[in-house]
């Protein structure tokens, strides 16, 4: 028997008055997958997440989590989700530990104390930090409490909105380590919205890119890596020859000493065609370049 998708939206549409927040969004996230949900500010990422959590109601269309309708089986859906909002709401007057205990009391499953202790250790949260009032903590420390509250119930689906915003590099590493660990265990699906594209590229199996409420592209990082044209700079001993016909269309710029090419697919074809090569620079694939083209609406960047 095949497992239902962890998340599936069908023609999901949301209007706020005359403003279109989402328009016919069809999204699928497989169980066990780490999915990066990308888009510029105001693209509809948070609205999508809030519909999944039944915090806002779709104007039309459906959203499902583990095959359950997010509206009709809202409580069952939320039982499966650990959520980290982009802007961490806090009861400022509470201590860190009281905050986590309060949130644990709202969970349907018992929070494993040993796992919580492990998270404290990993995110470097000391007993002193736990006893301090939340309004006395730094932004980064508050963010750590946000991550811990989302993870501590060991939910099968994690929805993390800008998880590493405000974290220092060590803590970003701790977060990445946690994500890898959850992926290895294979029990957790992670739906991650982020503007840190290097992080998405590193952590995610697939990405969905949303712009102005519409899903522009949904693909795996591996496919993107394969399909995105690579930028090469080829230097020659002496004067650069005329590009052979097999490369002519790919050459973007050339002068007497070098060519600049954008080449889609495996690079073997380029290397075979090159004669008199002195040096070659190949820019590594960067999700950022691809995504920025989509954000800016460059033709041909989307699907």
């Amino acid at each position, binding site marked *: 028997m095949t497992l239902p998708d962890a998340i599936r939206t069908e023609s999901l549409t949301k209007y706020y008055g005359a403003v279109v927040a989402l328009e016919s969004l069809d999204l699928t996230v497989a169980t066990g997958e780490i999915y990066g949900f990308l888009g510029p500010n105001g693209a509809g990422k948070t609205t999508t997440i*809030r519909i999944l959590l039944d*915090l806002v109601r779709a104007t039309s269309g459906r959203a499902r989590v583990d095959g359950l309708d997010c509206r009709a089986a809202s*409580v069952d859906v*939320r039982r499966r989700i650990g*959520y980290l*909002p982009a*802007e961490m709401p806090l009861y400022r007057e509470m201590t860190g530990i009281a905050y986590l205990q309060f949130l644990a009391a*709202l*969970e349907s499953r018992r929070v494993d104390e040993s796992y919580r202790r492990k998270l404290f250790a990993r995110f470097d949260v000391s007993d002193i930090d736990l006893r301090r009032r939340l309004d006395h903590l730094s932004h980064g420390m508050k963010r750590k409490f946000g991550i811990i509250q989302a993870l501590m119930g060991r939910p099968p689906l994690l929805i993390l909105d800008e998880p590493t915003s405000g974290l220092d590099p060590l803590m970003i590493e701790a977060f990445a380590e946690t994500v890898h660990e959850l992926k290895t265990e294979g029990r957790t699906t992670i739906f991650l919205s982020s503007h840190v594209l290097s992080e998405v590229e590193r952590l995610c199996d697939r990405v969905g890119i949303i712009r102005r409420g519409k899903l522009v592209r949904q693909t795996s990082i591996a496919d993107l890596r394969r399909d995105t044209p690579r930028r090469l700079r080829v230097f020659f001993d002496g004067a650069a020859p005329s590009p052979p016909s097999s490369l002519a269309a790919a050459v973007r710029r050339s002068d007497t000493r070098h060519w600049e090419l954008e080449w889609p697919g495996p690079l073997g074809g380029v290397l075979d065609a090159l004669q008199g090569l002195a040096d070659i620079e190949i820019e590594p694939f960067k999700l950022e370049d691809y995504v920025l083209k989509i954000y800016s609406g460059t033709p041909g960047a989307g699907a």
Partner: protein
Amino acid sequence: MFVALVRRSFARHRALIAALTALLSAFQILDIVVAYKLQQNAVYSQFAAMVPSFIQEAMGGALVGTFLGAIAVGFVHPLVMLSLSCAAIYLASEPAGEVEEGLVDLVVARPVPRHVIVSRSMVVYVTGTFVVVAAMFATSRATVHWLMPGQAHVVAASRLAWLAFNLLAIVWSLGAAALAFASHVRERARAAGTIALLAVFLYLLQFGAAAWEPLRPFARVSPFHYYATMQTLMGQVTPATHIAGLLTAAVILLGVAYVLYERRDL
């Protein structure tokens, strides 16, 4: 889950509840001590003559200038009624505050049914105001016993309890209106402020109706209209009908709150 939410809400509002309890209980003591001094100096008849008749009527009738009437002031004074009403309104407006502060993203993102949020706020505003009025009642009784050990029967505890319950019914109906409005809007100040202003307006409507005949038909919409202070204290009426009417209005408004909160975007 429900207990955790109720405890959290009480923790957030404990200063307000404690301060109001202390203030209104102190008011009872002050009121009865002043009444006792007036009685000792036999100045009630002069006092009654100084108060215009429409104010006497608004405050419960001709018995204003009596010791019994002075005790009732502790439960009928505009400051008491409006401060209690505003406290109930503020406590009941918490759902709008949670949306405004984003706290709802933490709470309702967990397996917490939406109706639990409304039930939580209902329990908190009903219990919070009950605690304040119970303390006022206990303080009033204790002060009468302290000052007039032999004459505490002047005000029967059961009559004072009816008065207190009638006051609570008014406060609860206004709290229910605030909860219904807070289940629709996104800002707590808007929810609490609007209903608090409405409460003041309804109080003035009832007060004005005592002085100006044409206003009387409209005073029926004011919950303060259903508060027959002196008749209740004298045992002339039992305000069960008034209380039932006010509680029915509260239940209807709470029903509206559940429906609105269930349907809204958070």
